C-alpha cells in the first residue's frame, strides 16, 4: 500500500453514479481490494472514503472507480472533475481468493449496488486465467443496474434481477441464485448486507464455498484505528473482532457472525 497523489483523468457522471479514472504511481491490486479516497476539500468531510477498485491499467498508471452518491463524502467524489487532485491510500485489504480455482469449478458471482465493481474486477481476473464464471446482478430498478455492458463482454452467463421487474427477472437476486444452490462450487458476493446474508444462508446449506466482501465504516483503512470491526467465529465458541480493512474485506461467510 501507498499514500498516493492522484490526478483525475476522467469523471463520467451519470445520475447518482460516477466512473472516475485516476492517474498516479500506484502498486498493482487484486479484486476486492480498495482505496481510501479523499479530494482536496479540506475537513468537510474529514475522513477519506473506502472505494473498491473497478479496474486498473498498471502500465498506464490508470485506475478506475465507480462511486455511488450515498452521502456527503461520496457526493464530493462523484462531483470530481478532470484535473482535480485526489489523495488515495491503497491498495488495501485482502482479495477474493481466486488463485486456486479450476476451469471445471462452477463459480457464481453475485453482486448488488456498489458491490458490483469489485466482482467485475474479479471477473476480469478469471477471464485472463481462462476461467468461466456466472454473474448475477440485482438492483432495485433498471436505472440502478451497473456495468451490464461490460459484464456481458466477459461472460455469456449474465443474469439480472430487478425488484420492480423493469429489467430481467422480477424480484431479488437471490431468486435467480437459487437455481445454482446445489451445483455451485464457489460463490463470491458483494453488495448490501441483507443480500450477503441471504446469499450466505442459501449456499452454506450446500457444498459451495462462499466468500463475501463486507462493508463497515472506516476511519483509517490501513489497520490502526480498529474502527471497522466485524465479529468472527473463533475456536471453542469464542469470537473476536477482526478488521474489515485488514483481515477483510473478504471473509468466508461461514465464519462471520451477523449483526
Amino acid at each position, binding site marked *: 500500500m501507498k499514500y498516493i497523489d492522484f490526478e483525475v483523468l476522467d469523471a463520467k457522471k451519470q445520475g447518482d453514479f460516477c466512473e472516475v479514472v485516476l492517474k498516479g504511481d500506484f502498486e498493482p491490486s487484486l479484486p476486492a481490494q480498495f482505496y481510501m479516497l479523499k479530494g482536496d476539500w479540506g475537513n468537510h468531510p474529514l475522513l477519506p472514503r473506502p472505494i473498491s477498485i473497478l479496474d486498473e491499467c498498471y502500465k498506464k498508471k490508470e485506475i478506475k472507480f465507480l462511486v455511488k452518491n450515498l452521502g456527503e463524502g461520496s457526493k464530493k467524489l462523484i462531483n470530481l472533475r478532470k484535473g482535480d487532485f485526489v489523495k488515495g491510500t491503497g491498495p488495501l485489504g485482502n482479495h477474493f481468493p481466486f488463485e486456486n480455482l479450476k476451469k471445471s469449478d462452477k463459480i457464481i458471482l453475485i453482486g448488488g449496488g456498489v458491490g458490483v465493481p469489485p466482482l467485475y474486477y474479479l471477473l476480469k481476473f478469471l477471464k485472463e486465467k481462462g476461467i468461466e464464471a456466472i454473474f448475477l446482478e440485482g438492483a432495485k430498478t433498471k436505472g440502478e443496474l451497473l456495468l451490464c455492458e461490460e459484464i456481458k463482454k466477459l461472460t455469456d452467463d449474465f443474469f439480472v434481477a430487478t425488484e420492480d421487474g423493469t429489467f430481467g427477472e422480477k424480484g431479488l437476486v437471490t431468486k435467480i441464485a437459487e437455481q445454482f444452490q446445489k451445483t455451485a462450487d464457489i460463490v463470491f458476493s458483494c453488495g448490501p448486507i441483507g443480500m450477503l446474508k441471504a446469499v450466505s444462508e442459501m449456499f452454506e446449506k450446500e457444498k459451495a464455498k462462499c466468500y463475501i466482501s463486507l462493508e463497515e465504516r472506516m*476511519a483509517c483503512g490501513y489497520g490502526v484505528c480498529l474502527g471497522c470491526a466485524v465479529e468472527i467465529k473463533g475456536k471453542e465458541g469464542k469470537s473476536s473482532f477482526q478488521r474489515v480493512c485488514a483481515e477483510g474485506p473478504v471473509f468466508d461467510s461461514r465464519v462471520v457472525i451477523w449483526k
Partner: protein
Amino acid sequence: MEIDLKVDVGKIELKNPLLLASGCAGYGLEFDDFFDVSKVGGVCLKGLSINESKGNNPPRIWETPSGMMNAIGLQNIGIKNFLKEKAPHLRKIDTVFVANFYGHKVEEYVEAAKMLDDEECIKALEMNISCPNISAGGIQFGVDPLLVHKVVSEVRKETKKPLCVKLTPSGNIKETAKSAFEAGADALVAINTIPAMAIDTEKMDFRIFNKVGGLSGPAIHPIAVKMVFDVVSEVPIPIIGCGGVEKGSDGIEFLLLGARAFQVGTALFYNPKAPLDIINELKEYLKRKGFNSIKEIIGKIKTKEKEKCL
C-alpha cells in the same frame, strides 16, 4: 544551519516533539509503507491491558464536523502477547515507544505497569485514566482527584519507568492534573477524547453501539489548547499537548504555551504522512522566525496572568 528539534520531557529525550497518539498508531509497526517510524519523536502504543480485550460491538466510529467519535472499547492483544509478538520488532526501531495502558481497578493498573516495567523498548508509560472504575460504581478514574491520586501513586511505587498520566477533559482538569503531579507523575498528557454522542434520526437509534463515543480531530483542538493552558500553569512537570493536531502550527500552539511535546492522532487517518509534513512545517516555522532550536519557543507565551471573563 540544521534546526535542532530535540526536546526533553523530563527524563525522556525525544529527537523531535512529535509523538503518535495512542490508539491511532496501532503497535507502531503499521506505518512502514508511509514513512520511517524512527523519524518521529515517539510512538504511544495502543492502550494495553493485562489480558487481551475484545472491544466493543460495531458501529464503533462516526464522523462529525471536522472530527470523529470512536468507541473502540480499548480492544488490544494484551500485555503478554504484546511483549511476545510486537516488542521484539520495536526493539530494532530507533524511537521512543511509550506503552499506553489501562485497567478497571487500581490493582489492574498496578499489575499492568509491573508487567511492562522490564521491557527495554518501552521508554515510558502512559496511563489512560479515562476508564470506568468498576470497584467504584463505574465512575471514571480521571474525573475524581482523589481516585487519580490513589491510582497514580500506587502505579508510581511499582515502576521505574517515567510515568505519564493522560488526563481526561471531563471533570476539573486543574484539580486532576495537580493530583497526578502530587502522586508522582513525571509528565502529563492533555487531552484524551471528549465524551460525545450522535443520533441517527432516520433509524431513531444511536450512531455508535456504545452510545457514547470519544470525540477527536480538529474539532477538539481549541479545547485541547485551552486545557494545556490550564494545566501548564498549575503543575511544574512537563506537559504533552494532544488533540486535533493536523499541521505544524497546531503543535506549535501547544509548545508556545509551554507544552514540551505534542501528539498526533486522528490526522493519521486522513493523512498517513501527516507526521512528516508536520515535522517539516516545524522546521520551516523556526527558520522563518529566526530560531535555531525548538526549545527556544517552548513557553514563549506567558500563561500566568489571570484570565478575564469571556
